[in-house]
């Protein structure tokens, strides 16, 4: 069971840390600019972390594989998003695919 106290502390640390990162720029206030390289590296790091979260959330459950229905749903959603289908439809299609497959007995 998750510990609510630890969870609350984690949320608060993330909140304080994030605010510190945000306010750092305006407080330094000088014309100082972060090198272009560093900025690009930061956005790449964001994409890498999120892509890894997509992959692990789509393909794994605990320490093992996630079955077929969930990855199939994510794949359908991904293809629709790639074809620039509206966001709401992407979500609905992904969920409907996974739910439909489970309805007919696919794990």
């Amino acid at each position, binding site marked *: 069971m998750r510990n609510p106290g630890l969870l609350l502390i984690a*949320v608060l640390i993330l909140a304080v840390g994030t605010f510190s990162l945000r306010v750092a720029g305006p407080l330094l206030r000088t014309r100082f600019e972060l090198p272009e390289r560093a900025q690009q590296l930061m956005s790449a790091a964001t*994409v890498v972390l999120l892509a890894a*979260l*997509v992959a692990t959330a*789509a393909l794994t459950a605990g320490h093992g594989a996630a079955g077929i229905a969930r990855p199939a749903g994510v794949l359908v959603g991904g293809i629709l998003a790639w074809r620039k289908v509206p966001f709401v439809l992407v*979500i609905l299609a992904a969920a409907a695919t996974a*739910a439909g497959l489970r309805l007919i007995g696919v794990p």
Partner: protein
Amino acid sequence: MRSIWRTLRQDLGRPLARDIALVCLADGVVGLSYGAISVGGGLQFWVPVLLSLLVFAGASQFLFVGIVAAGGSPIAATIAGLLVNSRHVAFGLAVSDVIGGGWKKIPGSHLMTDENVAFALGQDDPRRKRAAYWVCGIGIFVCWNLGVFAGARLGSVITDTDVLGLDAAFPAVLLALVLPSLRDRSTRTAALVGVVVALAATPFLPAGLPVLFALVGLVFYRVGRPVEEEAVR
């Protein structure tokens, strides 16, 4: 109230005001799904709601909830969230003048997102820059939090998320948000390597850590031509 809105509309101009409104609405929808999926995934109602009010940074919130809901440690979730939010240092340096001085730095910093920074930097006139930053920031804050609140309420009603396929909706939402950034070749390579590392590490490491290990992929990242504005918040 009306006259304030009219002044802002004048400062912004019609097309920009419309673009900002659309972005705010879209974020509201993302917030709705975020709230529903978080609570549907087994987290208590207050977790996504409090994160949205106090952290107010979508990418880090998704990471945090994703790691914790998968059984990962809240510490790993916090580290991942802070790493993702480190880009706000660069944003803050870029929009320091737009935010203004004195007490405005406090709310102005909290309202800093990918979207309103991009909107502000896209304007030439200082007045329009400022109007775009604040209107977009406040609009997103309101829409995002309303969306998350409503979604979390919705999620509490849902008892079996797997039957509804909500477990597939979460990665699909993130994938839709990340896709535009993957058009950059070097970023794509780094992300692919990261994905492989995270998947390979999953059977052996506690939940949450594989996502952090994905940062190894950055070794393959090469700074090249200017990358497009990021679509992830």
